[in-house]
């Protein structure tokens, strides 16, 4: 049975098809809890919170069937501000906790809120295994490239050589690229967005919510206290032209100041010798051979190559958008199917028969 489940066609079921719908129309206000938001003024987390509260009414789900689970860190206070069910757990463990919840309650829309330290340092193991399993979870990874709550140490996404309180002579370790990591961990949905781009953020969240299985959304988020301006190059209109590559499914990967055809003057092409991707000037190269983005490609190779275009130091050529979105069997669906199959094969469990087993004897009083 397990074989057919693993290799058979993926059920067409929507990620949210088992989640009850709300009785009435909702607004962002319905998702605001009565708790005062306590992030630092100017923190990028506010924008993400507003975007999530603003977009959830679109899904029209019964809010009692939505759960936010977080770990530890600034962003992990998120659940307290959502008027849904929520758990603020312990450092790094939110994906594991959410896995148990989602695997046993398919009628819930389960969200994980985590940060670069929480998800990629102390909780790295849980993150990669959640992605590999493809449990029905939506993971929002707030990446500010710094430890905020512990007041400013470098994080696993900080650029090498970063001067922080714990690295006065510069950090020594190379950073993770969360998108590359997720693709390597067999993630079925991987996207990147930016806190300040409400429209793009909302669009990515919408796609993540509807994805059956684990969705990882990396959100570049500004920590204005300990790492202010970390993503300025992506936000400043002029610099962003060169820095940001907006991925759109089915469209050629073009960016930069517009060329004659109105699309970006730079394009991404595949190097025929190495198979790797590189950036070209469309005016010189022409439009032939420009990569057309295919988030649904079965092979993760091109998505991975796209994730490697970004320079970890300057953030030049940073793609944002959905890198990868493929259908593959969802853990909690498979688990539920096994339970059903077990009942079909052996009948519903009979406790008395179980306790008796095959070898008994009787003592007459």
């Amino acid at each position, binding site marked *: 049975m397990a074989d057919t489940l693993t290799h058979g066609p993926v059920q067409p079921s929507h990620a949210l098809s088992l989640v*009850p719908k709300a009785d009435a129309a909702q607004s962002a206000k319905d998702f605001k*809890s009565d*708790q005062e938001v306590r992030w630092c003024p100017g923190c990028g987390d506010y924008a993400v919170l507003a975007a999530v509260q603003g977009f959830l009414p679109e899904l029209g789900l*019964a*809010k*009692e*069937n*939505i*759960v936010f*689970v977080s770990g530890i860190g600034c962003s992990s206070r998120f*659940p*307290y501000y*959502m*008027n*849904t*069910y*929520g*758990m*603020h*757990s*312990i450092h790094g*463990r939110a994906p*594991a*906790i*959410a*896995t*148990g*919840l989602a*695997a*046993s*309650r398919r*009628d*819930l829309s389960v969200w994980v809120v985590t940060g670069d330290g929480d998800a990629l340092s102390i909780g790295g*193991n*849980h993150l990669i*295994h959640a992605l590999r399993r493809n449990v029905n979870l939506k993971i929002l990874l707030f990446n500010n490239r710094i430890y905020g709550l512990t007041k400013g140490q470098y994080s696993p996404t900080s650029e090498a050589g970063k001067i922080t309180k714990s690295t006065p002579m510069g950090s020594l370790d190379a950073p993770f690229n969360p998108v590359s990591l997720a693709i390597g961990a067999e993630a079925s949905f991987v996207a990147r967005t930016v806190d300040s781009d409400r429209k793009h953020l909302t669009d990515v969240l919408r796609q993540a919510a509807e994805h059956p299985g684990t969705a990882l959304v990396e959100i570049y988020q500004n920590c204005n206290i300990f790492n202010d301006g970390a993503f300025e190059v992506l936000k400043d209109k002029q610099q962003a032209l060169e820095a940001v590559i907006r991925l759109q499914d089915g469209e050629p990967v073009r960016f930069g100041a517009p060329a004659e055809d109105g699309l970006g003057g730079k394009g991404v092409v595949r190097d025929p010798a190495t198979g790797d991707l590189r950036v070209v000037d469309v005016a010189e190269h022409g439009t032939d051979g420009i990569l057309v983005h295919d988030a649904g490609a079965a092979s993760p190779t091109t998505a991975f190559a796209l994730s490697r275009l970004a320079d970890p130091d300057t953030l030049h050529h940073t793609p944002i958008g959905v890198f990868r979105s493929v259908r593959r069997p969802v853990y909690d669906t498979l*688990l539920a199917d*096994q*339970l059903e*199959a*077990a*009942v079909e*094969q*052996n*009948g*519903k*469990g009979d*406790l*008395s028969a*179980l*306790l*008796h*087993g095959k*070898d*008994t*004897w*009787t*003592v*007459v*009083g």
Partner: protein
Amino acid sequence: MTSQVSQDSAKEVRRLDRVVIRFAGDSGDGMQLTGDRFTSETASFGNDLSTLPNFPAEIRAPAGTLPGVSSFQLHFADHDILTPGDAPNVLVAMNPAALKANIADLPRGAEIIVNTDEFTKRAMAKVGYAASPLEDGSLDGYSVHPVPLTTLTVEALKEFDLGRKEAGRSKNMFALGLLSWMYHRPTEGTERFLRRKFAKKPQIADANVAAFRAGWNFGETTEDFAVSYEVAPASQAFPAGTYRNISGNLALSYGLVAASQQADLPLFLGSYPITPASDILHELSKHKNFGVRTFQAEDEIAGIGAALGAAFGGALAVTTTSGPGVALKSETIGLAVSLELPMIVVDVQRGGPSTGLPTKTEQADLLQAMYGRNGEAPVPIVAPATPAECFTAALDAARIALTYRTPVFLLSDGYLANGSEPWRIPEPDELPDLRTQFATTTNHTLDDGTDVFWPYKRDPQTLARPWAVPGTPGLEHRVGGIEKQDGSGNISYDPANHELMVRTRQAKVDGVQVPDITVDDPSGGAKVLVLGWGSTYGPITAAVRRVRRGGDVVAQAHLRHLNPFPANLGTVLRQYDKVIVPEMNLGQLALLLRATYLVDAQPYTQVRGLPFKAEQLHDVIKEAIDHG
């Protein structure tokens, strides 16, 4: 099979009241299987029994070496017994290493059946025998039966198209057949078992059955075995009922399934494989038709994390592990204490510290279970005393977890996990009703008249908080590991509130209802009390009986609840001049007793990876009585 026994057999039959047999061989010789089968035969015959498997952590240690020896000891009797026996009456030694590793445990006069085929010069030299112990007179004090088990097995299987090596593998079944003849064991079960086990390889099934029968017939016909033994069924020892043989890990697994049924909650197990707890994961994985979800996590922390997530969602949540796993789970147990969600943490204890002795038993996680977390994080502790009692312990742990919304430790150990004994199967109506109520409505009215749900508004009796599961409209709430305001559950750093919450969580656990401890003091005049917990019950009780048979007076009591202690424990302890606490650690319970009750409880400790022997504890108790 019994029909094949010749009716005119002239061999002598002796009646015994009890026998201890130890099967010993290489870890690849199938000794655990042989022991299991002999145990099943014995159980179905109606003897009382107790078993002690003992095997190395290595899957296949180097062949023929002392560390590679695997053994299985079985004690069976026509009356009720409590331990796998101090010393074997019979040793089956499949090779020189098995003889050498076990001979010191045998009393003079014991019977030894050796597989002479394995006593080659090289094999003997490997374990340091300069001369053959079968010939140098060193075994003169024993009754030795030299049997070429391998040769006889190969000979018996010559009709089968098997090589010598492959045929020789059935020698354990030959030995089982021989022992089955010696002790008049019923054999149908083993033949049925072999046919089932090798259903896909009928030739192997036939070969094993043939070897088994050949072993029986060998005993019947050969001169060397002049006597066979009968051990009558223990009909007086058992109350009326239907029985089966059961190991601790199996009983514990069934207890969890039963708890889920009795609570009408789906069972969720989050676990990471670890010896000696993995069998619970294996067993529960077979019962998906009971709605059981088993989740093999990426690590110990994820195992308990997933369980806690499932508990938040309204499942009966369980995580199973051993001591090293508990260390990794500590932070999440603390979170569960803070979230006040029901969860069962099963710790099948093994020798420590660190990796320690993975396949051997110990009771050294008591203080870890009691205190091994940051902050004041009290957790109730339940500890079964026998393998079969693991069933009721699981139900009891579920009762406490669900009633008080708290994680609960269930402390088993390697000896309980793998040891087995007869178990009277309970009728469904004997099982406790564990149904619990989820919160469905608001429970508090604010000053402005708004009805709200307060996740930390407690039941005044149990101090348990309401369990409102996602999907319940109007009760949306947030919980977390940060200190919460009493009642509302909102984040609070207020000093007085923290003091209140810490003391309230403690008071809740202190108030968990557990039965009074009962004292066995038949004369009422004992001056010495022996107090144990967990798997020491068998050897302590056997020792106490022995002391009483010798004319001395001693009281015995056994703890099944270690947090909170039974309410009458202090009174009980103060009634005796001397309190002895045998433990397989360096005195952890004694430490708690001394700290809690200011009584001079004296630990008697052992950490050999093996259970106490009854004789050893008899001497300790006798010494306390005589020189008290």
